[in-house]
């Protein structure tokens, strides 16, 4: 009987995994086809496969450009960023033992915003904005991590408090930057940047950040069982033989790299890192061994879905941050409603 039970568990996981992979593939194709410029489904596939196989050219240059230079990069980026933010959100939620935590808890997003806004203020190029955002995120988290050491209390609570302090400090600096920015050009650019978008994403802009997203993701996935143990609390994790400082430090480093890279590729995108891990936990349970892969796929689907909506519901393209909030918040309430028995 006990064998059957665990078999049912495994089958359920496999079923949900493959079903969500299929949904991801469907949304992926949809994302390539949907848009103001019509490219038939068959042509879309022909254009993509022509990069690998030799296929007789039956399409024009505009169709080629729409698929290869516009839709494919943003589609790939949406999947990666959705998965990345969900993974780093779930990681933070485990190490801080709090399901309400989002990946920018330690100030990475607000730091990245200051970095990007400073670069915009100096009329920097888009590459400079990217680098500056990435550096800003890392510096903010580094300061956050330094505070507990300075006051010689390395408990999780102090770390979280430091994160709150640094985030709000960064927000204040952000206000100063906005205040001095040129209202016609720079302020608008800063505001748009902060709302997040894949509209400008190209393979060239993606390439430099891919290693700092994919490698930390792989590390977190490999070490994911440790997240279960960390989520029990500092003392229990330590008594089970975990070196708290190095293990937690490794997870924070990886999550920070992921979030900072995401922000510098597509701006700040809220809600994904919070809502998606919750959804995955509701569907498959809390065990990070199964939950993380599911959360990543869900995150990819959600982000793609949001991006498709962004470019279809209005003539001018909407920003991601708007829709993740508008859809994410009510969805989150729905999840809380479903879980109301467990939430204490």
């Amino acid at each position, binding site marked *: 009987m006990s064998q059957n039970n665990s078999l049912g568990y495994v089958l359920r996981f496999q079923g949900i995994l493959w079903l969500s992979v299929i949904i991801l593939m469907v949304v992926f194709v949809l994302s390539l086809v949907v848009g103001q410029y019509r490219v038939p489904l068959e042509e879309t596939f022909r254009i993509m496969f022509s990069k690998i196989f030799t296929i007789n050219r039956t399409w024009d240059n505009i169709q080629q450009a729409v698929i290869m230079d516009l839709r494919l990069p943003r589609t790939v980026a949406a999947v990666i960023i959705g998965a990345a933010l969900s993974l780093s959100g779930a990681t933070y939620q485990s190490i801080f033992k709090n399901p309400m935590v989002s990946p920018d808890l330690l100030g990475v997003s607000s730091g990245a915003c200051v970095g990007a806004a400073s670069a915009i203020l100096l009329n920097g190029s888009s590459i400079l904005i990217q680098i500056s955002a990435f550096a800003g995120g890392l510096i903010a988290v580094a300061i956050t991590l330094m505070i507990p050491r300075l006051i*010689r209390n390395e408990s999780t609570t102090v770390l979280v408090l430091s994160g709150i302090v640094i985030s709000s400090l960064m927000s204040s600096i952000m206000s100063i930057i906005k205040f001095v920015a040129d209202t016609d050009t720079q302020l608008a650019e800063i505001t748009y940047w902060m709302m997040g978008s894949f509209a400008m994403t190209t393979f060239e802009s993606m390439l430099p950040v891919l290693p700092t997203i994919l490698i930390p993701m792989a590390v977190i996935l490999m070490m994911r069982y440790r997240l279960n143990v960390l989520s029990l609390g500092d003392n229990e994790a330590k008594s089970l033989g975990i070196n708290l400082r190095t293990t937690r430090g490794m997870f924070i480093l990886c999550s920070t790299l992921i979030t900072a890279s995401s922000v510098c590729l597509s701006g700040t995108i809220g809600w994904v890192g919070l809502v998606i891990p919750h959804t995955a936990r509701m569907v498959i349970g809390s065990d990070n061994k199964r939950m993380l892969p599911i959360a990543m796929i869900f995150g990819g689907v959600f982000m793609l879905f949001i991006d498709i909506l962004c470019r279809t519901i209005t003539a001018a393209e909407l920003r991601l941050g708007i829709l993740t909030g508008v859809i994410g918040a009510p969805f989150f309430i729905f999840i809380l409603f479903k879980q109301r028995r467990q939430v204490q």
Partner: protein
Amino acid sequence: MILEVNNLSFHYHNGPMIFSNVNFNVDNGEVLSILGTNGAGKSTLLNCIANLYKPMSGKILLNGKPMSRMSLRGVARIVGYVPQIHTPAYAYSVREFTVMGRTPYIGAFKTPSTEDYRIADEALERMGIIYLRDKSYTEISGGERQQAMIARVIAQQPQLILLDEPTAHLDYGNQYRVVQMIRQLASEGYALIMTTHNPEHAIILNGKVAILNRRGVLGIGQTAETLSAETLSNLYGLSIKTVYDHDAKRNVCVVC
């Protein structure tokens, strides 16, 4: 000797001395109950032995080896720690929770193997709660949670089990059951140390008892000789007498 504690002392950063010059040892099949008033430092002492706090001076030897020179993992394979009952942030199933006891044997880049799950199931079976296996740890009762916690420490396969107030937050019946469980574990050869606020638990266990007083001095001895009416009265600032009960075949404490 599984555990030898020599000359141990501890104080928090810039704080007063919690305890000093603490000496005792615990061997296979022995139970040590630590009694003391609120804030006397029972849990602090337990946390030092659990390798969670670094003592200011003194030595802790595990099987003759100094703990300070062992890896965290190495210690976790010998010492199991049962914290006070609490609700974790996530609704792990009882099985997922129990298998975490295997952590000291699982590499950083690995997940629990079939063998680890088998050992966890075995521990659940031994605690008689295999039927709770797929239930969420957050939804079971306090007594069941304490059983799951002990199942997890059994899955950890330690030689020494430390329990921090294992009877706190439990009803009268469950308190007694947990104490019986501890006795059972001792008879199977585990060495156990627990902190408690109830001297009768120490009497039922009938092993060693250690009393940590407010001055940070630890007195230790066999329960029968050490837990006198006078000692208990002094410790708790009450007038306590111990009465032999012929049905229970042991002393019971009565506050007069």
